[in-house]
């Protein structure tokens, strides 16, 4: 796994090579076919992903209905943030909407590294908080139903 592939993500852009080394050691390249489920809602968050190329949908499932895509993620974005916070359980289902290549990270290994490396933990926390803030802002905007009728 090359450092460049990991660094391509905006989320990890502030990490130095030294800080990134344990992340690289915990990573592997993976591919998902279009339609393949990456992880399930309520599943244990043992692996998280950075999309290299492709499109992933975060879905909410309900009995008797088709899954509802609430957001799509594309190149350079992180799939899943629940791996960082107890109880380490996915809140959504993630599914590849197109053939997708990604970098998979062993979440437990990264969490263990964070216990020993404060700077790595701080940078990851900052990156995840930034991504979460953007997604919260976007979700609020979606809730406004801006394009709805003004009648």
């Amino acid at each position, binding site marked *: 796994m090359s450092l460049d592939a990991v660094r391509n993500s905006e989320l990890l852009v502030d990490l130095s090579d030294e800080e990134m080394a344990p992340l690289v050691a915990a990573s592997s390249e993976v591919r998902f076919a279009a339609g393949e489920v990456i992880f399930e809602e309520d599943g244990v968050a043992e692996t998280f992903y950075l999309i290299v190329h492709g499109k992933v949908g975060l879905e909410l499932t309900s009995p008797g209905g088709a899954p509802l895509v609430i957001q799509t993620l594309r190149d350079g974005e992180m799939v899943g943030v629940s791996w960082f916070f107890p109880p380490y359980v996915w809140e959504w289902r993630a599914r590849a909407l197109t053939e997708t290549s990604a970098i998979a990270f062993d979440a437990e290994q990264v969490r263990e590294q964070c216990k020993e490396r404060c700077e790595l933990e701080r940078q990851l926390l900052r990156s995840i908080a930034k991504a979460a803030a953007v997604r919260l802002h*976007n979700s609020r905007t979606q809730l406004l139903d801006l*394009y709805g009728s003004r*009648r």
Partner: protein
Amino acid sequence: MTTTAAPEFVAEAMLPRPFRVVSRRQETGDTFTLEFEPEDGVPITYDPGQFTMLYAFGVGEVPISIAGGRAGEPLMHTVRAVGAVTDAICNLPEGGLVGVRGPYGKGWPLQRAVGKDLVIAAGGIGLAPLRSVVVHVFDNRDQFGSVSLVYGTRSPSELLYEEELRWWRSRFSIEVEVTVDRADAAWYGDVGVVTNLLPRITFDPANTVAMVCGPEIMMKVVARELGARGVESDEVFVSLERNMKCGIGLCGHCQFGADFVCRDGPVVPFASVMNRMTVEEL
């Protein structure tokens, strides 16, 4: 000193010309695209981004952006039925008559974009005033650098110009990215806000003109995101919508701060209005 518009000019500008509906197509549940031919045979020449006042006889008059109508083509308007006048216009059959005044206002700064990258960002029915920009770009593709259209709407069933979107995308000479706020299971495109699309398109922020049209909150958010990516606010243009009545800057119904949107807009640099876009009830 006060100035008074010449009476002849006012009389001419306030007189609707009859146009006949020559085609009508339903775009979404409440939105229709109509094409009109002038009864007197004299076509309207316009700049992309300008608007006309459409008069539904016996009902009332509304400002509607021009969606298309190059030389030799019918005048095209895309209208959303949101009230008595727009309901009446949308329900006009082929052969029906409307009154048309205009075109009015300032359009998109296409000359300013020549030689530069162009970002076209549309939200909902905001694609209608930008459609003629896209058509102009295809007609004059070599005048521009990279050109991208990002379009966000409520749901897949509320996409405007679906066939044209497919055609535009298939040309590969402009980037076309579409997202929806809510998707059904059949949708394999993007879900999320239109600003999510900006990191995925190609443009040089220092050499880019952006044209943005949609709900004002959407335009503000897109302009800010473009600013965060390095595009100067005076290179971002937005199209304002207010209660235009006369269309020629006389009545004041469309006043927005010191400007009359019908005369000084509807297309304005974001830099000139950004401070006003956070003022309540303005």
